[in-house]
């Protein structure tokens, strides 16, 4: 188990470094196993340095920067051991438009290299426009949810319900 964890740590770290650079268009990041001789007891530390900035504790990163860093880590795990499904509930909420585009670019890359199916819940019109298909959830009758398949125009109207 120890050897497997160390091997997968190396692979995840490799993917994480690459994904961070592509999400931030630069900068560096890495994963560090801390505190213990035994990888099974260790903690996982993240060192993230957005482009042009000094490395700082993670908590000093902004809301948007933390969301992108977390995404890079989740997707690094996928590339190492692809999950059959990934559900992202409004992860684009803290992102500005250019980071939303980068996030969608990353999703496109993920579907090229893994078989993971993605379900992305969003209010953001940019993300909506980049989905392969859209489901709308409505409450035509108050308090009762209904699922319908929708096109992009209808989806934008939901947003402005």
């Amino acid at each position, binding site marked *: *188990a120890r050897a*497997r*964890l160390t091997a*997968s*740590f190396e*692979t995840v770290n490799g993917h994480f470094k690459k994904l961070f650079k592509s999400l931030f268009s630069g900068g560096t990041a890495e994963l560090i*196993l*801390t505190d213990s001789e035994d990888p099974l007891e260790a*903690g*996982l*530390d993240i060192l993230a340095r957005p482009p042009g900035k000094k490395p700082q504790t993670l*908590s000093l990163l902004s*809301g948007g920067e*933390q*969301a992108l*860093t*977390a995404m890079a*880590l*989740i997707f*690094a*795990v996928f590339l*190492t*051991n692809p*999950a*059959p*499904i*990934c*559900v*992202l*509930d409004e992860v684009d909420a*803290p992102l500005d438009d250019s980071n939303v585009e980068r996030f969608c670019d990353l999703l*496109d890359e993920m*579907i090229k290299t893994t*078989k*993971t*199916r*993605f*379900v*992305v*819940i*969003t209010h953001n019109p940019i993300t*909506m426009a*980049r*989905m*392969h*298909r*859209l*489901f709308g*959830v*409505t*409450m035509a*009758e*108050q*308090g*009762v*949810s*209904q*699922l319908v398949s*929708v096109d992009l125009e209808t989806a934008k109207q*939901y947003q402005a319900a």
Partner: protein
Amino acid sequence: MQFTKLRLLGFKSFVEPSDFVIEPGLTGVVGPNGCGKSNLVEALRWVMGESSYKAMRASGMDDVIFSGTNNRPARNNAEVSLTLDNSDRTAPAAFNDDDTIEISRRIEREAGSVYRINGREVRQRDIHILFADASSGARSPALVRQGQIGEIINAKPESRRRILEEAA
């Protein structure tokens, strides 16, 4: 194994039977505030064997059963079923004979849940084993709750390591 369909009946605000088809690639889910998008994600987590009512944002597991509106009475049970495509024969041995695997969970008010795989009643442990082998499950880091994307960053290093174990 691939996830192909989620069916809800009486689960939270999905009182009417609802089919959510999951196809390859990117499926977007949109709709106004409070319409039931996050409830859909919780239905998926629940059928995969979630045992904590807190993960359902509830104060007891019975809170997942439709509690009624001004025009409709509350229900006394709820059921969610998940259909998996197993044509690549990657399921654990006990369930690997079939092309499709249907997992269902049904809850009765004050009587708890019953799980079934292809119609046969199973224990919660069997559900956990099935999904653990498939790198998924109710606690998978691949199911990101609303507002929780920052949680991974702000978590303690020990709990972050759990994510690595998924990759192993």
